């Protein structure tokens, strides 16, 4: 049955039945070797984790080598793919039959098409840079070999996730990256906070996994398979209700992995992990898996407008929430984490816009991968030079001490706030355009997000690299070694040219992805130049406010916490007080309430459920009295119930 369905799927796909379907052919030639992509890092992980202390001395080199080998393989495949016609670039590689239980079978096969290709290059490319950077960053950690083993494991799992051609195999990669993330967040397990954060990430992700599992269960129920081809081909024949349900379940899964509302809380805590981990997993790659999932499931979302609306709403809420949280944090990594949430919100929102937005979501995902990894690694470099200090209120004026870090970070900064011609400008602007074309409210949300982004990123920049020196160390901050700065420079270059390059050099990313995601042109409600001007104006306004508050005045080392009246009375500058009362206070309240909600509301729900279950458990446990006679009574009661149940069935 499955084979007929997949034949059907191929037929439908050839006809372009759903958004931009293209024929998927069995891989030949070099594409047959796609599995090597996964095999290299997996082998690396195996050597590093099983090899024991013998591999301690060369562990980091093996780790980097595995990742780079995979990247080279990716490049080879990429150029081979360029040689194929633009609608014949999807290949499957069947490896082995994983499960064949009853009428349900799962093949472990890989799907290499334009979308997964983009991810492969991002994961292996940025991944390799981060591997190299980690050599320097983790130099003094005695468990460095293990760290590289986990990183390789992560890369392998992430590649499996994006190369899978079956939701179940994707789910294996999904859990694999979860495991690696969990291990790496808690890598410094001697820190209690790290252990707690790892636990929290695990717990919240389980909720998302439930979504994945339920989505797969629904697929088996409705389509009898979880293979992409079968599911997508038969989605059109299924009822809208089921498709919507599947879409919503997938969204729940995506929310868990991508830290989207309401499952966002773990990401901020995940910053307890080493900084390269934050850069690779919690900024550039793993957290974007949710976006990948939604874009990959385009055929389902195309048929479920309600599910798509839910995606847009989730994206919009998260993008604003992340941005506002980013304003409130003094911890440099947490501020960046808030920003990550916010940017992924952008991507999710774009993905929710349907064919009009899929390609832009991926575009932003790629550029974000460049500049966010760049900034995280930059933050790591700052911490490296500042003896692991993360509080920005203890930074200041670092641009002179750490020039390379400063300049590369600045590239990332300009990219994220969307100053042309830096990478973020192109990708974010496209999303804002698409959002406005879709709906005014959504458009305004993205615009507001852009303004707040400009504000908090400027704040971060100013507090870290400008202003008064607020550090008191005997040895002043120093620039990081070349092994760390070279990746920074590469990423900075990508942050500068990435957007322009992907859009205009060689193949346009939108055209490149079109065979997978489909394409839709939108009509803007206003002239394009006007929208761009408004966007840039908003960004400049955000920057200006931040400059007024943090660049203009000395940043206080302690956290200002007085009540607004006292502050105003003490302060002669009524303008500031006004600013504070009108702009800052409500903002702060909003921030606080959001943070409060985040801590109490969602966490509360999770914790509350856990407590309730725990209470139930404690209550049920008391049945186990230890008296054999009570057990016998329970059994005899059970006998009555069972016999009664047997008899009742025949009764009506």
């Amino acid at each position, binding site marked *: 049955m499955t084979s007929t369905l997949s034949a059907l799927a191929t037929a439908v796909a050839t006809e372009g039945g759903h958004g931009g379907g293209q024929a998927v052919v069995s891989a030949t030639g070099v594409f047959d070797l796609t599995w090597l992509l996964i095999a290299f890092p997996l082998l690396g992980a195996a050597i590093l984790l099983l090899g024991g202390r013998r591999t301690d001395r060369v562990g980091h080199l093996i780790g980097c080598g595995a990742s780079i080998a995979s990247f080279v393989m990716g490049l080879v495949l990429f150029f081979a793919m360029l040689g194929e016609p633009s609608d014949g670039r999807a290949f499957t590689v069947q490896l082995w039959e994983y*499960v064949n239980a*009853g009428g*349900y079978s799962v093949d472990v096969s890989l799907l290499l098409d334009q979308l997964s290709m983009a991810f492969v290059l991002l994961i292996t490319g940025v991944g390799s840079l981060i591997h190299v950077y980690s050599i320097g960053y983790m130099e003094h950690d005695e468990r460095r070999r293990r760290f590289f083993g986990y990183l390789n494991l992560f890369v392998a799992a992430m590649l499996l996730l994006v190369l899978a051609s079956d939701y179940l195999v994707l789910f294996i990669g999904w859990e694999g990256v979860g495991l690696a993330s969990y291990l790496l967040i808690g890598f410094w397990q001697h820190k209690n906070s790290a252990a707690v954060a790892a636990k929290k990430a695990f717990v919240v992700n389980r909720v998302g996994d439930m979504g994945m599992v*339920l989505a797969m269960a629904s697929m088996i129920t409705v389509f009898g398979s979880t293979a992409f081809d079968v599911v997508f081909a038969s989605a059109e024949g299924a009822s809208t209700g089921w498709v919507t349900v599947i879409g919503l379940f997938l969204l729940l899964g995506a929310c868990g992995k991508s830290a989207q509302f309401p499952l966002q809380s773990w990401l901020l805590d995940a910053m307890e992990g080493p900084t390269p981990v934050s850069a690779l997993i919690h900024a550039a790659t793993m957290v974007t898996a949710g976006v990948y999932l939604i874009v990959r499931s385009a055929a389902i979302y195309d048929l479920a407008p309600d599910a798509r609306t839910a995606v847009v709403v989730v994206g919009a809420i998260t993008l604003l929430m992340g941005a506002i949280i980013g304003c409130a944090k003094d911890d440099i990594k947490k501020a960046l984490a808030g920003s990550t949430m916010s940017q992924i919100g952008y991507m999710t929102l774009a993905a929710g816009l349907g064919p009009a937005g899929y390609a832009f979501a991926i575009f932003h995902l790629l550029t974000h991968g460049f500049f966010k990894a760049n900034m995280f690694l930059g933050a790591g470099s700052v911490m490296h030079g500042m003896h692991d200090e993360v509080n920005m209120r203890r930074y200041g004026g670092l641009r002179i001490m750490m020039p390379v870090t400063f300049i590369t970070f600045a590239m990332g900064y300009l990219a994220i706030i969307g100053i042309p011609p830096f990478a973020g400008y192109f990708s974010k602007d496209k999303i804002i355009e698409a959002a406005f074309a879709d709906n005014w409210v959504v458009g305004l949300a993205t615009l507001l997000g852009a303004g707040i982004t400009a504000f908090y990123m400027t704040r971060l920049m100013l507090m870290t690299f400008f202003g008064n020196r607020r550090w008191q160390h005997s040895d002043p901050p120093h620039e990081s070694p070349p092994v760390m700065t070279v990746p920074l420079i590469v990423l900075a270059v990508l942050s500068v040219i990435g957007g322009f390059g992907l859009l205009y050099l060689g193949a346009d990313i939108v055209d490149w992805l079109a065979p997978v995601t489909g394409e839709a042109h939108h009509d803007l409600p206003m002239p394009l130049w006007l929208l761009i001007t408004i966007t840039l104006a908003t960004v400049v306004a955000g920057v200006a406010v931040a400059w007024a508050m943090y660049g203009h005045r000395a940043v206080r080392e302690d956290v200002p916490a007085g009540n607004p009246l006292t502050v105003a009375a003490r302060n002669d500058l009524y303008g500031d007080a006004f600013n504070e009362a009108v702009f800052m206070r409500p903002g702060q309240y909003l921030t606080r309430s959001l943070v409060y909600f985040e801590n109490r509301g969602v966490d509360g729900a999770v914790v509350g459920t856990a407590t309730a279950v725990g209470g139930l458990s404690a209550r049920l446990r008391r049945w186990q009295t*230890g008296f054999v006679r009570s057990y016998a009574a329970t059994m005899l009661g059970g006998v009555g119930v069972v016999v009664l149940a047997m008899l009742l*069935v025949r009764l009506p």
Partner: protein
Amino acid sequence: MNAPTIEYAELAPLITIFGAAVVGVLIEAFAPRRLRHPIQVGLSLVALVAALVQVILLAGTGMVAAVGAVAIDGPALFLQGTILVLAIISVGFFAERRLEAGGDAFAPSASSLPGSEEERVLVRERMLQTEVYPLVLFAVGGMMLFPAANDLLMLFIALEVMSLPLYLLCGMARRRRLLSQEAALKYFLLGAFSSAIFLFGMAFVYGYAGTLRFGEISEALTANVGQDGILLAGVGLMAVGLLFKVGAVPFHSWTPDVYQGAPTPITGFMAACTKLAAFGALVRLFYVAFGGLRTDWQPMLWAVAIATMLVGAVVALTQTDIKRMLAYSSIAHAGFVLTAMVAADSSATGAILFYLATYGIATLGAFAVVTLVRDSGGEATHLAKWAGLGRRSPVLAATFALFLLAFAGIPLTSGFVGKLSVFTAAIDGGAAPLVVVGVIASAVAAFFYVRVIVLMFFSDPAPEGPTVAVPSLWTAVGITLGAAATLLLGIVPGPLLDLAQQASIFVR
């Protein structure tokens, strides 16, 4: 009267096991004391391996042997083979003598008074209770017969042959002997109680059908109009007896107490093999004999399955003893298997067989790990003592974590594939709501498995925590095999799944 024909070739595995058990008893009587332990271990292993080879050679057989009493078919042979493999590994754990300074997990003499001078002398003299091995062989024989029984009488006798040695073995722990004896008493009383209920159900089913053979019962199901009540009550009562053995709610209450009190290698053996055998018998009885009553027993088993999954998963949350936690986990797993069983779909049997095999291996391994974590009082089973174990002994903790992940059903472990196949079978059989409950229960269950992992890896070690004993080759090989199988079956489950699927045809 004609002499009955007995198919000795097909019954050879059973005969081998029972014969070896009898020889084992004779060895107890005649062999010199010091030689008994090596002889018994060797004999048990040889017999088990020989029986395994015979089972493998019989693969593909589909017939009814011993005048209709025993079915030699796919499910029976698959379960017999699995039980034998598990038993071979278990015997290795029983033979472990390095952990207790020359002693094994059993009391040097079960008849000596706990704490008496006599016991001290026996411990000092490194005496061993070698009757354990023949008893285990008898139990294995009963377990092999149980899922193969093709009439009610054989089913009852196999149940008792399997249970009696286990009642005895539960009471033979070397340490904490009072708890061990209490476990034996509880298991025995409740077990006898449940077999009486089972027997009464059998009487009713016989009363309805007028025959004991499964095949004839299934033909008689539509015959006697007006007596359905007797049949249904009988099926219910018989179900209770079998559900007791698999540890389904509300017949589960013995499980945690007995698992905790019994000597840990026996607990592992029991948890893995008894469940296999009992599920095999349950499935054969309900599919072959009562298959025509499907719509009648399905609602009842739905309720039992839901209660089993939820109670198992929820109560495990607040357990503080690792053995009790694993006991509740085994209850939850019984619920997962029941979901597939309820569906009664064509793919259900294969899924159940696969699940049981993978679950058995992981369980055996997990309990073996428990035997290695020790302090001055023997095994340190309190969860608090496991804190920080990952730092003291990362390899052991990682192995245990692997077993726990398999129980939790995380991908790339055998547990995931097992869970997937039973849930798929349940969905195919129209039991989707049951699967939803199953997924929720799995999520709850994941919490307590992960709690242990977190405790081992992310907590500070207790200052006077337990040490991880270095086992002899017996235990080390067993645990390694279990871990390897758990991982391998998670990555390449295909061959075993195919085998289970091929083996899922019942002879009628």
